[in-house]
């Protein structure tokens, strides 16, 4: 190929009129784009800016007689005013006018001349007309073609004098399919299996296996995350956290299960409005909660509420219809037939969402739905299964224990005569009967050296539960000095008699607690009349709190008791009211450290707060054991058991025996009790599983009686509604109307979008699928299918793909499969001279595209090749390596800090990286990942020095290189070339050739010497990254191979899909 030859070819390609082959000028391809960009501003759909009442987007207007002149007279240049105006150089006459700063080029003028001469044929804008399936062109080369796609591609190649490339070799195909369908490279054994599979459908089998994999769902979801402007933070002002990954997981599941695209659409746009919608459908509707929201103190909420509606309109129109509907917010669309009024009719579909303009910076803003994570679901199932197992064991124990029980009751019966009252429980460590006071002091009957002193208005009262008692008034209390702290990991029990002035008592009956030190200590607690307890190391991260589900009765002496088994769990903590064990709610569950505090025990309050004014207290007791229920009952005087024991076995009714047996098992039979404790623990964890709520934000409309009216906002300003006319929801007139039976709601809108008659939805989706697989859409403006959009390279093909997709159940996997099984796809990507001459950008597919992987996949590949990749499907975002300080230096008063995850979370696929949208992960940003503050349907693909710095120096990539080196050195391969072949098989799916071996062998020999001469270097390099290095490996060899591995990870052939 001569240099000058190439230059000339490219020049002529670009600068000549793109009349290719024998095709004549096409209105849609050649003329409309010029009219649109240079004329429609004044002669297009927008009434406001229209000049001379002339519309060039409508044939009728363009051809109309206007006082004797006509803008366009088909076939007659001289009579066409437009032609004269284009040629004129008189500033008053010329078109476009000089102030537009959009002069016509010579090529454009030539195109107009040709078109006018040829008869000025008009065409409807290609994407707005009904979608019909074109016939598949006869294939010029039937031996080459594999499916209908190839017919279209081949015809277009033929017209340009191009031929398709030969099929790529099988290694290339294996790697290409893996990268395109999953974003991950094949393992060497996967490549080998494909090479060894000689069956005629080996290729299709591989495709089907990949389409069924988690990797496929992840790959497709990543693209959709860009479209959905997905992030883990709220964007504006504080950019605080939110939890939307349940929505992302919904998308993962949808792709995995191949949900039809129409259902995928309806559930995301209006899942909440479906009849009896499921939790999943509500989660899906969160698509339109992913947008940026604000929490800035000074905002005017309505301004932002309107912003959110505008964003939803824009995103829906861009993503599903390829319409830039947002242009009509302030004035009618300049290029496409969407008036400002129509904009606000469309806007009305979204104008009744219930979420407010001012949103929270602390997590999710209502409306939300509660969800269970996969982990939670899994744990719940595990626990329930375990509980059932233990329950069975208890049943078995029940049978075993019968004999011992009978012996016990017999023995008790024999003793019953002597024992009129139950034995007082052992383990009493403190007892304040509160019967006598002397100089404000009252004794502790057990701890004689305690000092128990009245303070303030608390006073002794007579006629309490047992003789005297204590009444708390005003700020009075009784303080016990020298009270020994119970220990968090040993059992204890405590309680007293109490009389409250009302049934909704709040506060601490007594407590030993330091409120100033995160409430360390314990108390006997009233919460709105319900008794409970806090046992706290640090509220509320390290504490137990339970509250009984029953209220105390007012103005009556009642017995309250807490027992605790030393387990640090709510399940080991019981609340008794008058001897009855209460069901309780758990408000904190997990105590693992001391509850000791310098503060004294006080009756009537905590140390300084939670005063129980008017409450009377009597007979306070502390035990250093977990009392059994019968013991508590006996203290409360409600003992049912002791009388039963005085009845002989033969005289007891079966019910009485059952009561006794249950009591025996639960209180006295150690094996049964142990099992019971285990079940209590499970119960506690199940309860707290339900409590750590994960929510996902969803769409929800205002109630029917609070529906907002929609008005046109003048100049698009939230503050300038034109209240003279209300706009009801409706769709633009240039598109087929909504079916009569569809409601004028978001649900109706969603169903209209996927109506088979909708001309845009299928075309836009098919184009996006093509872009996903081939790296570039058939139309290069995936979010603009209007008149300013890009004319498709293969108009018939895009129509065929769209109709085929629509007519086959909107089956996404089928559509993708169709593309990757075409001969077009299977071509070699080698660029030849004639490609550079005739199609340098590869618009027409005379070769397969070769391009650098998406940023996420660059990192995923390094992790996969090195063996570090952790494959978990879905779940909350993770925080892998990033340089320190990046959040703090930009966050509101330094309030948001990045805390790196540890262990396996460092090695998840990059799509799970926690996405903070004001300061996103910089290594991914260097590789063109969008911030996702707004919807993005097409990523840039740049090539920059920053990318080289990331893949060479980022801790993540250096660590990956170290692990890759380990994988190579422990592979069993012994010679340098065997090792290198192994490495290249992983990175590029093929062994190294002679040149690569020579280059890298030379490097190896030089560098291993460097490391041996300077051992510290090896140690340093091998210490990069959190994971430990393999100490069994020779450090010099390991370090040398780490550099080799880094080089291989940085090769163009590793970074590119080819």
């Amino acid at each position: 190929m001569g240099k000058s030859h190439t230059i000339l070819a490219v020049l002529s390609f670009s600068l000549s009129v793109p009349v290719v082959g024998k095709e004549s000028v096409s209105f849609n391809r050649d003329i409309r784009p010029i009219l649109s960009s240079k004329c429609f501003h004044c002669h297009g759909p927008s009434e406001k800016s229209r000049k001379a009442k002339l519309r060039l987007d409508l044939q009728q207007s363009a051809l109309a007689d206007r006082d004797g002149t006509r803008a366009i007279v088909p076939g007659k240049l001289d009579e066409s005013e437009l032609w004269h105006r284009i040629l004129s150089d008189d500033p008053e006459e010329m078109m476009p006018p000089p102030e537009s700063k959009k002069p016509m080029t010579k090529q454009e003028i030539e195109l107009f001349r040709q078109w006018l001469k040829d008869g000025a044929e008009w065409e409807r804008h290609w994407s707005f007309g009904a979608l019909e399936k074109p016939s598949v062109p006869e294939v010029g080369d039937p031996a080459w073609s594999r499916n209908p796609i190839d017919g279209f591609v081949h015809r277009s190649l033929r017209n340009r004098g191009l031929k398709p490339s030969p099929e790529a070799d099988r290694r290339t195909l294996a790697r290409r399919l893996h990268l395109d369908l999953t974003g991950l490279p094949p393992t060497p054994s996967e490549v080998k299996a494909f090479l060894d599979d000689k069956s005629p459908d080996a290729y299709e089998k591989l495709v089907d296996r990949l389409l069924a994999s988690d990797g496929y769902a992840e790959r497709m979801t990543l693209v959709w995350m860009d479209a959905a402007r997905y992030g883990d933070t709220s964007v504006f002002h504080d950019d605080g956290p939110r939890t939307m990954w349940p929505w992302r997981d919904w998308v993962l599941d949808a792709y995995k299960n191949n949900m039809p695209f129409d259902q995928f659409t309806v559930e995301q746009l209006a899942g909440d409005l479906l009849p009896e919608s499921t939790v999943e459908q509500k989660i899906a509707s969160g698509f339109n909660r992913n947008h940026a929201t604000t929490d800035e103190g000074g905002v005017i909420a309505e301004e932002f509420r309107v912003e959110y509606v505008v964003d939803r309109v824009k995103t829906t129109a861009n993503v599903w219809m390829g319409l830039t509907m947002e242009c009509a917010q302030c004035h009618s669309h300049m290029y496409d037939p969407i008036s400002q009024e129509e904009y606000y009719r469309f806007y009305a579909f979204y104008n009744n969402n219930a979420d407010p303009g001012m949103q929270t910076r602390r997590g999710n803003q209502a409306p939300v739905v509660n969800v269970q994570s996969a982990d939670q679901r899994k744990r719940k199932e595990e626990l329930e299964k375990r509980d059932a197992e233990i329950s069975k064991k208890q049943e078995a124990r029940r049978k075993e224990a019968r004999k011992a029980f009978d012996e016990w009751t017999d023995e008790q019966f024999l003793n019953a005569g002597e024992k009129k009252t139950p034995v007082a429980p052992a383990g009493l460590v403190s007892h304040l009967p509160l019967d006598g006071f002397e100089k404000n002091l009252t004794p502790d009957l057990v701890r004689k050296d305690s000092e128990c002193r009245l303070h303030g208005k608390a006073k002794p009262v007579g006629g309490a539960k047992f003789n005297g008692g204590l009444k708390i008034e005003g700020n009075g209390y009784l303080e016990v000095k020298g009270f020994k702290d119970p220990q968090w990991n040993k059992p204890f029990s405590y309680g007293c008699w109490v009389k409250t002035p009302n049934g909704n008592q709040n506060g601490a009956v007594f407590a030993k607690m330091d409120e100033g030190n995160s409430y360390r200590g314990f108390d006997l607690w009233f919460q709105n009349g319900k008794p409970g307890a806090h046992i706290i190391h640090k509220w509320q991260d390290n504490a137990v709190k339970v509250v009984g589900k029953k209220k105390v009765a007012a103005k009556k002496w009642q017995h309250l008791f807490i027992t605790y088994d030393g387990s640090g769990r709510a399940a080991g903590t019981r609340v008794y009211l008058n001897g009855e064990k209460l069901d309780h709610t758990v408000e904190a569950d997990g105590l693992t450290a001391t509850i000791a505090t310098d503060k004294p025990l006080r009756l009537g309050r905590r140390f300084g707060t939670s005063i129980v004014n008017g409450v009377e207290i009597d007979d306070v007791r502390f035990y250093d054991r977990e009392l059994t229920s019968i013991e508590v009952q006996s203290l409360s005087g409600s003992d049912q058991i002791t009388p039963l024991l005085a009845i002989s076995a033969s005289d007891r009714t079966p019910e009485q025996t059952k009561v006794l047996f249950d009591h025996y098992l639960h209180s006295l039979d150690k094996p049964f009790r142990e099992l019971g404790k285990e079940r209590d623990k499970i119960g506690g964890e199940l309860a707290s599983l339900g409590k750590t709520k994960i929510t996902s934000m969803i769409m929800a409309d205002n109630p029917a009686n609070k529906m907002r009216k929609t008005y046109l906002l003048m100049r698009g300003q939230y503050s300038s509604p034109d209240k003279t006319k209300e706009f009801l929801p409706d769709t633009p007139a240039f598109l087929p109307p909504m079916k009569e039976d569809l409601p004028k709601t978001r649900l109706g809108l969603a169903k209209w979008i996927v109506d088979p008659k909708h001309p845009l939805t299928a075309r836009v989706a098919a184009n996006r699928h093509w872009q996903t697989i081939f790296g570039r859409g058939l139309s290069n403006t995936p979010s603009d299918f209007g008149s300013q959009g890009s004319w498709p390279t293969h108009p018939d093909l895009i129509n065929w793909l769209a109709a085929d997709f629509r007519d086959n159940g909107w089956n996404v996997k089928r559509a993708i499969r169709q593309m990757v099984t075409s001969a077009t796809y299977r071509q070699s990507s080698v660029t030849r001279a004639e490609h550079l001459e005739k199609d340098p950008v590869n618009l027409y597919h005379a070769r397969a595209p070769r391009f650098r992987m998406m940023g996420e996949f660059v990192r995923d590949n390094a992790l996969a090749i090195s063996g570090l990749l952790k494959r978990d499907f879905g779940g909350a975002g993770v925080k892998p390596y990033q340089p320190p300080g990046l959040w703090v230096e930009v966050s509101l008063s330094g309030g948001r800090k990045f805390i790196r995850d540890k262990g396996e979370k460092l090695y998840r696929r990059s799509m799970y990286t926690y996405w903070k949208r004001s300061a996103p992960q910089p290594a991914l940003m260097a590789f063109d990942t969008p911030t996702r503050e707004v919807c993005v349907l097409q990523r840039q693909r740049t090539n920059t020095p920053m990318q080289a710095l990331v893949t060479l120096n980022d801790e993540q990539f250096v660590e990956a290189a170290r692990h890759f080196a380990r994988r190579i050195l422990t592979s069993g391969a012994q010679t340098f070339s065997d090792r290198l072949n192994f490495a290249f098989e992983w990175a590029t799916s093929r062994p190294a050739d002679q040149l690569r071996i020579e280059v890298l062998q030379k490097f190896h020999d030089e560098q291993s010497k460097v490391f041996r001469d300077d051992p510290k270097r090896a140690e340093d390099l091998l210490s990069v990254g959190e994971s430990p290095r393999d100490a069994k490996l020779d450090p010099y060899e390991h370090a040398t191979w780490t550099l080799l591995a880094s080089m291989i990870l940085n090769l163009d052939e590793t970074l590119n899909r080819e």
Partner: protein
Amino acid sequence: MSNLEIQQILSRRKLLQLGARGFGALGAASLLNPSLFAEANPSSPFQGTLAGPHFKPAAKRIIYLFFSGGPSHIDMYDYHPEMRKNHGIELPDSIRNGQRITGMTSGQKSFPCVAPMFDFSRHGKNGSWFSEIIPNIASIADEITLVKSVHTEAINHDPAITAINTGVQQPGKPSMGAWLDWGMGSPNKNLPGYVVMISKGRGQSQALYDRLWGSGFLPSKHQGVKFRSAGDPVLYLSNPKGVSRDMRRSMLDGIAKINQAKKKESGDPEIDARIAQYEMAYRMQTSVPELVDLKDEPKHVLDLYGKDAMRKGSFAHNCLIARRLSERGVPFVQLFHRGWDQHGSLPSKIRQQCEDVDQPAAALVRDLKQRGLLKDTIVICGGEFGRTIYSQGKLTKDNHGRDHHGRCFSMWLAGGGIKAGFEYGKTDDFAYNIVENPVHVNDLNATVLQCLGIDHERFTYRYLGLDQRLTGVEHPKVIPELLA
């Protein structure tokens, strides 16, 4: 794809440049990569996507000193002696004029006007007022144009800071620096064309966002590169521990050899671009540390920037690095200094802020001038909005706050193409409304583009059906009065 679009990709100029230089080694896909072309024609004033300037440029580069949080124009620049008389009176309805105010003070029952609690004096030939808290900036009065009538629609930080940096309040658009990097490119191939530095102020810090220096819909290579005061000056710049520069050289040589082989096998011209980018990364590894190493700065220069000149992460330090970047031809350097959001305790806090910025900002202008750089470098200084004449919270003898105010605020410009010793725009006695010569934030940007030789109306990029501009869809205008 239409002819127009193909032309957008393969612009005529690039092809002509190639034709002049020879095409072979670069290959066709590199047509997509402007930076490679830049090397093709070093004599052109622009190295980016624009074929060349629309007019003769007066300046080649910008240093933008951005004070984030909304510095009070009233306490620094926009002084009216009548403010003293009005001190303590309720803001007259005729002045407020139904204007919306933020959610932070809209519930306030009283809006007492507050005169600045600082002395003001006149400076320069033009006799402009300056506050006692910015004596050094006052001393360069004859170098600058003070614009007192900048305005924005936004009344809160996030939308306002986004609007002034990207042209619209909503996210998604490229920043000014990204536009310039895309359009103009950089003559320096060893440093990024758009550098951002952040310094922490002493007051309440409002958040900053990547979008403020982001590339929006432009190729992401044009996003601003942050120079950082801790760790690597540019992220990921340093070789891993244990890897020397020689070792890195050997690695890159090996990679390049294999990549060249791959180029032969695949015919993909983009591989040449990759090799070139790895080389540029290698050069950056020395050029950036050299740049931020101030050991060759003489004492009198360090003294000029003040006591913090050598303190990494300070505004003074960043100003000095900005000068060094401009010296090396970097076209757009933007400093964000935080901490100007004085809703309360304004008198003490703004004084502290000014202590940190006054001397270095003035020093930068002087330093550029003495090096002959000011004539083709524009220095811009200001924030996203100003503050209200009325007190937020209680007004006491020596204390008060001020809320956000977008209806007028002050910025100053100096250097290439900008009038020196000039003042433009007038506000009423309450520094509340503009009474003369309004300058919208987009007008200001349009004017600055003009200085660089760019017609903001022809500086467009087709995205979502529109020929998008830095200066937005309204009709911003260049302010010729500001131009020298």
